[in-house]
């Protein structure tokens, strides 16, 4: 076995430039594959963080009629208690009761239609991480004369407002009457999605309920679950537990995001497969050329009594060694590349415009260590498969003819 490996190793370096070329191809192919996969994960993570984690949450509960008519009168009966119950479940991390209404926000010289979310600041911070998204001002800590509102950076720009500005919110109360109230901008939050920033404002639920005219209104419960992969299962359980509420998971709430992630995931798996197959065909070609150049030598090995199985193993070993060299070097270089780009970020061309659609303008690729091992295993499997045909060609040689070949 040792000699077999030794011969294989030396055979690889007989044509140094050819071996270096195929090893470089493997390295570049792997780097390309790893880069694609890491960008996909970064995009997925960014989408999740911005849309699911920071906005929608994994599951939402509403009054069934609220979906078509988002008005305060379609609220969830006993919403605060339900949210409290949900928070105590083992499969749920936190459940945030909200009062969500549509309204207008106005500064001294501009106004805009917005969705007003009345929240419990402490629970909301744990649900969407809103507190951490505040980049200017503070998060519901001030006890001033005017109640606080947290608005998006994009809306602040549009209204020409800033932390400390006074704004007026206008909305319908439970009787359908228009009511207005002044708020002071306590903080500005920042998300990748400019459209969310422009149309969503947060105020204390108690302030909103006071304006609406009912102290115990919950129109929406946002739920964060322990295992994000179980969102369908948990949503089904909650549907059974609360038959009067409309329970929807994030894939229902954000179908376009769900399908784009699905398509993206599928596409990138195919890109990875194509890259690995291209590398494998390159390997196959290299080994096949090497076999055709060594017909006489292989004939001698067979003639002197080296068993076909050993000759086969030698060819497979050559291919596997090339794949391992390229694979290990490629994975190390990919790891370095991802570490570097994970710190510096990868700007997306035209990223500024993408922010309006909820996409980040800079992605920070990252990969789990397990992925490197997985891709290495897949590469070695494909390399072994690629070696089968040349190895089979080698062992089909007739020694008597092969030794006489020029």
């Amino acid at each position: 076995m040792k000699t077999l490996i030794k011969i294989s190793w030396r055979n690889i370096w007989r044509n140094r430039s050819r071996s270096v070329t195929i090893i470089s191809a493997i390295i570049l192919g792997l780097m390309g594959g790893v880069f694609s996969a890491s960008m996909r994960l970064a995009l997925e993570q960014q989408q999740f963080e911005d849309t699911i984690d920071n906005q929608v949450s994994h599951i939402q509960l509403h009054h069934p009629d609220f979906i078509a008519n988002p008005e305060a009168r379609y609220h969830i009966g006993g919403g605060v208690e339900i949210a409290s119950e949900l928070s105590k479940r083992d499969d749920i991390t936190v459940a945030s009761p909200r009062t969500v209404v549509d309204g207008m926000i106005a500064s001294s010289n501009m106004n805009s239609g917005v969705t007003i979310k009345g929240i419990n600041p402490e629970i909301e911070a744990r649900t969407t991480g809103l507190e951490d998204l505040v980049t200017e001002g503070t998060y519901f800590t001030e006890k001033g004369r005017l109640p606080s509102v947290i608005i998006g950076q994009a809306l602040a720009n549009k209204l020409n407002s800033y932390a400390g500005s006074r704004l007026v919110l206008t909305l319908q109360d439970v009787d359908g009457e228009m009511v207005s109230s002044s708020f002071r901008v306590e903080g500005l939050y920042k998300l990748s999605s400019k459209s969310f920033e422009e149309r969503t404002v947060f105020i204390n639920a108690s302030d909103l309920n006071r304006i609406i005219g009912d102290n115990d209104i919950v129109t929406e419960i946002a739920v964060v679950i322990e295992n994000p992969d179980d969102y369908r299962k948990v949503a089904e359980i909650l549907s059974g537990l609360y038959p009067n509420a409309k329970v929807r998971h994030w894939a229902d709430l954000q179908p376009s995001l769900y399908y784009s992630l699905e398509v993206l995931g599928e596409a990138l798996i195919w890109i990875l497969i194509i890259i690995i197959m291209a590398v494998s065909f390159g390997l196959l070609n290299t080994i096949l050329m090497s076999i055709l150049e060594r017909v006489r030598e292989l004939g001698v090995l067979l003639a002197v009594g080296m068993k076909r199985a050993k000759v086969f193993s030698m060819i497979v070993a050559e291919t596997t060694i090339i794949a391992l060299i390229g694979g290990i070097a490629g994975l190390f270089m990919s790891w370095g590349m991802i570490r570097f780009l994970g710190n510096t970020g990868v700007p997306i061309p035209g990223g500024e415009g993408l922010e309006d659609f909820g996409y980040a303008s800079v992605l920070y690729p990252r990969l789990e260590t397990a992925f490197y091992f997985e891709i290495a295993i897949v590469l070695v499997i494909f390399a072994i498969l690629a070696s089968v045909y040349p190895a089979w060609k080698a062992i089909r040689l007739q020694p008597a003819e092969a030794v006489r070949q020029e």
Partner: protein
Amino acid sequence: MKTVIKTTNLSKVYSGTAVPVHALKNVNLEFKQGEFTAIVGPSGSGKTTFLNVIGGLDKPTGGHVVIDGVDIATMKESQLFDFRLRHIGFVFQAYNLIPVLTAVENVSFIMLLQNRPKAEMEQRAKEMLEQVGLADKLDVRPGKLSGGQQQRVAVARALASRPDFVLADEPTANLDTESAFNLLDIMARLNREENITLIFSTHDQRVIERARRVITLVDGAVASDEYFDRETSGEENGQTGQVMTATL
């Protein structure tokens, strides 16, 4: 003397062509232990086919090849691999060493396939390379050796594992005169010292003049089988010796 190889009515017909080619026709020959035999004849006379068939590289279409009491014509391919490995040494026209192995590794290679102990293998390989005058080239790869030196390594490789007999197909065809004589002297000496049966196919007169037995094939059949007393006829000078016997 012990019979090493015996062929009986050995035939080989290549039927893949429009007209079947009878490469061997009822060849009946015996080779004794320690014989130094040249198989001669014009191109297409069946020399290489004969060596391939008695070497287990090709199957006869008729007859028997009995080596050490075993008819290899009836062996399966997998058995033939093992048989070749343990009983036959090969020397090829184009040296055919393994280019990525050094001289000593090349000589050890067959013993390695036979799973011989490492120490024995190394000692024997070095001893053989010394015998062929390449003691100073142990760690040199074939690419750095001359044609004559490569063929001497090939001879050392073929004899190192002490096979029952060695088949050499045109071993001097690619060598200049000096290298060819040098090689033949070495082979003749090893034949005597190791008592290994050597069978050459050749149309090189230099080889024929050294052989103690010369078998001539014409159109696949034995045309003559002559023995010469080289011991008394100035072998080292490459002169033709006295014809002892002739059989047809």
